[in-house]
């Protein structure tokens, strides 16, 4: 085997391999959208995060604007601290409302932002003040049952 032909084939192989990695990164993965642009970190505290997971999406008006990067437990306030990495292109007002929603009845849980009307914007490292915890299905059902039972008592 001629040296130059061999080198050419190896070069072709390595180029093809790198092209495949790039394809997986840019076309298959999300490196093109979320990772190439600047990001900043926000925090929010919740009483209960339900089944929220690290790497879950953060959405505003249904559009993914960031990802959950860390979930911790604050031992002093007994709250869950959720750290989110937000796409640098999007800014949110100080009084933005962060709630935990479920996609569909049993789908994955995500954090939804409802933008407020404040003039000042949230800065990197800020903590969102207004939050709403996850809806826990068991609680919802028991509430419903109790209110039904109470209704029945009133009628008698």
């Amino acid at each position: 085997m001629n040296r130059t032909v061999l080198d050419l084939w190896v070069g072709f192989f390595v180029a093809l391999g790198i092209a495949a990695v790039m394809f997986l990164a840019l076309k298959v993965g999300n490196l093109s959208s979320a990772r190439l642009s600047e990001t900043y970190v926000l925090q929010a505290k919740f009483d209960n995060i339900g089944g929220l997971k690290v790497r879950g999406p953060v959405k505003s008006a249904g559009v993914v604007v960031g990802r959950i990067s860390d979930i911790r437990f604050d031992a002093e306030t007994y709250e869950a601290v959720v750290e989110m990495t937000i796409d640098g292109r999007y800014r949110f007002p100080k009084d933005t409302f962060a709630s935990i929603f479920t996609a569909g009845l049993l789908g994955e849980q995500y954090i939804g932002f409802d933008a407020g009307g404040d003039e000042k914007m949230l800065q990197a490292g800020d903590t969102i003040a207004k939050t709403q915890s996850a809806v826990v299905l068991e609680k919802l059902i028991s509430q419903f049952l109790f209110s039904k039972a109470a209704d029945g008592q009133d009628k008698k």
Partner: protein
Amino acid sequence: MARPADLLRKLGHATVERVWRLGFAARFFWVVLLYSGASFRRLPLTLREIYFSGVLSLIIILVSGLFVGLVLGLQGFEILQRFGSTEALGTLVALSLTRELGPVLAAIFFASRAGSSVTAEIGLMKATEQLKAMDMMAVNPIARVVAPRFWGGVISMPLLAAIFSAMGVLGGWLIGVVFIGVDDGSYWSQMQSSVDFRFDVWNGIVKSFVFGVAVSLIAVFEGYDSVPTAEGVSRAITRTVVTSVLAVLALDFVLTSFMFRGTS
């Protein structure tokens, strides 16, 4: 004739043999690393091995990658249709390929295509005294023959796995979008929104690197340790393929349980 004692003795003997061989392999690994300098100082040596392990495995990787993608697309569509979520086909194909099937299947094909031929080559060099002749010429056969083949495999493996996954995603796209008619936009966008580069793609690359080290080491070790006869070499080739496949599956389980623990 005490049968139980005899059996116990055989079991003990087999265990000692296995453990001894494992230790020998570990020592061999260390020696290969120690003598790896020449593989990088004299790059043509390693390039030649990348050609033989990587380039010559390209056809089987491209074709099998495409077909695995086609099958995933077909089966995935069939199942997702029951839940009315065919737009998630891209996600299903891409995640299963980048996380598991790409690295694992590519490693198994690599073991049977390139690993076996490396074992055969080194085993035959041993059987025909070429390794001893090299040693007598004051050229270390581990540095000159074994290490370049090891590194050629280690470098080729992640590239082959990436090519396999990419071909699979294209295969899934071909069957899902072109033939069945899943929406092109949702195939890619669903995929992108759920496949994370660092988490899914990168972990897959790390996996294939580990598999590359394991398969290449098994291939060169079995060749170097083979009984220097025609029968011994053919047995060594069989052992390379069997041990590689088992090692890849076992390592995959261990790596998966570390990488994807407690998330999604």
